């Protein structure tokens, strides 16, 4: 049978998919364990979530959470940093640390037959780091040098400046690496005290995923972590103050520039504080963003890339966290097109608030790609473990995955317009440009964003 080329073939009914079943357990020391059976290749992933994200950095100690996390594999018990790495390498482990806004995730993936050794190494790293002065000095120096290098990376320069514009002095307002001044002032006592206060079984959740029974997966966590006792240091319950509301702009300016003379492109961020992850409007915000800028076929990318050729790609999104999250448009655009690109983005932010509500086709496309593609994210043990860890991070129910698709389907075009009006506002947005100031200054004036605030490349 030859193909009928008069029309695209129909897509069949959505295949059924059983989302992973999560089992919850609590160890004797209060540690929460979540297990998921995942029977594909013989690979096990453990993700440990510690209540020690960037938000835990005390004022003047920016970078403390990240450097403490980094010290984990710099030596444990009697082992040196090199010996810890040797242990990881000998089981072919992939070990990663992600210092997020609200929590730090330590993850380890290894072959099933090495799972016990992997779990034991992870426990050593988390529970028994040596925290030696010599290692701290070396790690600190590497981070200071890294900070210097980041000055040359436009996307990172933009991210740093944008977070500061959004959150000011709140700990959400800095990257995990912190600042040179704070890193320079950190003492070993700071790291030890932070570790003692924040790394404790009662505030840690471990997700274990692999081709074993729930009991077998639990045994992996229990064998490695049950001996971890709650530190005597009292829990530091004093969290940072609540960040300002979405209507409370932290910057007085609507345009900010970080100079990068001679840059062939401008790195752009346009956004403002917008919504919290726990808002009931979350599914509507996902659909809204999918229409506006979350995907290749979204309005912003189609305009800036596919219609105008200003950029290799443009997107929008929320940087979700437990507190209020920023919504922003991000793109790297040809210097000569900077003002036009900003103007187009602002017009798109405005349009979705009502003058150009999503069409039926756009709604269908946005919802289909969010829902029909959802099972794809559950292929590997690592993907499943990360998804389950996200549920722990945002305190979402174990039924979240099954409920996701119907919740997205329930979103209507009117909901998209309503949440856009409430959470996206070009009049409140700050536009940040990392680029050649002299080359773009004049063209930015007609945008009506006022005088630019000039920012240093390192804040």
């Amino acid at each position: 049978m030859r193909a009928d080329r008069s029309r695209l073939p129909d897509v069949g009914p959505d295949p059924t998919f059983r989302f992973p079943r999560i089992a919850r357990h609590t160890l004797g020391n209060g540690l929460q364990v979540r297990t998921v059976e995942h029977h594909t290749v013989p690979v096990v992933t453990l993700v440990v979530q510690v209540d020690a994200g960037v938000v835990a950095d005390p004022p003047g100690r920016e970078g403390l959470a990240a450097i403490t996390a980094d010290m984990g594999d710099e030596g444990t018990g009697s082992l040196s940093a090199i010996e810890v790495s040797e242990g990881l390498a000998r089981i072919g482990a992939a070990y990663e640390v992600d210092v997020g806004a609200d929590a730090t995730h330590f993850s380890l993936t290894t072959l099933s037959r090495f799972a016990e050794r992997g779990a034991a190494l992870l426990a050593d790293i988390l529970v028994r780091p040596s925290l030696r002065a010599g290692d701290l000095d070396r790690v600190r120096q590497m981070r200071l040098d890294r900070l210097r290098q980041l000055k040359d990376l436009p996307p990172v320069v933009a991210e740093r400046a944008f977070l500061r514009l959004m959150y000011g002095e709140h700990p959400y307002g800095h990257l995990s690496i912190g600042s040179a001044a704070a890193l320079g002032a950190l003492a070993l006592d700071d790291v030890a005290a932070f570790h003692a206060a924040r790394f404790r079984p009662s505030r840690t959740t471990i997700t274990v995923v692999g081709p074993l029974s729930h009991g077998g997966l639990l045994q992996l966590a229990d064998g490695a972590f049950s001996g971890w006792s709650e530190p005597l240091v009292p829990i530091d319950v004093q969290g940072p103050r609540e960040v300002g509301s979405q209507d409370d702009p932290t910057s007085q300016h609507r345009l900010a520039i970080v100079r990068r003379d001679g840059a062939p492109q401008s790195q752009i961020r346009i956004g403002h504080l917008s919504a919290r992850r726990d808002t009931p409007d979350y599914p509507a915000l996902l659909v809204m963003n999918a229409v506006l800028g979350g995907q290749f076929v979204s309005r912003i990318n189609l305009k800036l890339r596919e219609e105008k050729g200003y950029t290799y790609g443009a997107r929008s999104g929320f940087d979700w966290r437990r507190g209020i999250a920023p919504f922003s448009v991000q793109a790297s655009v040809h210097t000569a097109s900077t003002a036009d690109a900003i103007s187009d983005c602002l017009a798109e932010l405005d349009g979705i608030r009502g003058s150009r509500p999503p069409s039926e086709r756009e709604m269908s496309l946005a919802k289909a790609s969010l829902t029909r593609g959802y099972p794809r994210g559950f292929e590997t043990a690592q993907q499943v473990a990360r998804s389950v860890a996200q549920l722990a991070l945002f305190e979402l129910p174990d039924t979240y995955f099954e409920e996701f698709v119907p919740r997205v389907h329930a979103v209507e075009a009117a909901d998209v317009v309503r949440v856009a009006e409430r959470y996206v506002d070009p009049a409140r947005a700050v536009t940040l440009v990392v680029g050649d100031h002299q080359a773009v200054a004049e063209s930015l004036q007609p945008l009506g964003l006022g005088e630019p605030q000039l920012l240093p490349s390192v804040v």
Partner: protein
Amino acid sequence: MLGVGSLTLPFAKRTLANGLDVIVHEDHHVPIVAVNIWYHVGSKDEQPGRTGFAHLFEHLMFEGSEHHDAGFFPPVQQAGGVLNGSTNTDRTNYWEVVPTSAVDLALWMESDRMGYLLPAVTLERFETQRHVVLNERRQNYENRPYGFASMAMAAALFPEDHPYSWLTIGSSDDIRAMRLEDVQAFFRTYYHPANASLTLAGDIETERAFDLAERYFGELPRGPRPAPVRRTADLANEARLVLEDRVEMPRVYMAWLSPAMFGEGDAEMDLLADLLANGKTSRLYRTLVYERRVALDVSAYQNSRELAGFFLLVATAAPGGSLTDIAAVIDAALQRLIEAGPSESEMERARAQAEAHFMYRLQTVGGFGGKSDQLNAYNVLHGDPGFFSADLSRYREATTASVRAAAVRFLGVDRRVILSVVPRGQRELALSGSQPVSVA
């Protein structure tokens, strides 16, 4: 010890009458199917003055074809799928990962652009993608620290008429000079069934997959197989170069010509890269970064390609560390390897890592590096999609002696390229005797 049986990538292969290779791998864990096509064309098939064409052409493949004269993203995303493509020196690949219910859609679209692309290629689409590609180049090379280093290295390692002497992204001047007419000849030469390999991997039965491949691709005419590109390269001495860039720290790039992909010594060079400079357990990390602290980072890579390979070592100076110190430490480490080879303990570690990485490669059906992409890689570059297990054996069977022999043969200090990238205006930070190069 894990059974060898579980470290395999089973498949079935047939070749259609028009020359299209079709490979199928079943994996029913998640209701998705990966569709992956490799065209055996890349920047190796370009000529000087026409660089970057294969990649710009790839962009046009997403803009529409005769029977679907509109962007390729919306229908696939409407079906819950994702899609992408990429071009390198040797091949161009395109893939979709779709729910099982949308396999027909993905195959229809891939076959339509393989057979009927040209009527949809307009001057307007061509011009827009030219600008998109110029912006891709600005974003990934021109506006990125050390972004020009790879161009300078390629140009120094290979002679001017060797297609590996330019990067796949091409030169801006060449991209600006491309003409719409060039698209047609390129399409006719390289985009046809006999120069392509199609893999379906995932939630689909083998027979149904072959039937669908025949239904959608069987009607397309066979084209002439392009003649293989043959070029040789040889480094007779050491070249020292310096490039000024908008960077904070000086960095040294050192490269040698090395075996082509799957060639004799290729796996050994890969192992050498790991034991020399990848991860905290490597020899150079230990000396340069951990003990002497003269470098911020060090890495190495056996970049093996179809026509040739090169082995690349990169280290960034720490404040107070000089490139001269770093190069001396590297040379001493190379000398020790050449004299004594790796230790048995290092080989054990390397074998464990290789085995784990091959296992990790079996976790996803689609996308870049997924099982469908690997089957096509083995089929196109080795002529046998079943090479997975033998590929792993290359690493399992490497010995201290074979690794040392590869170091002796390929890592001579008297035939290599050394590039110092230094902050603007600070050429004195380069290795002595370095000649300035300019790259745009």
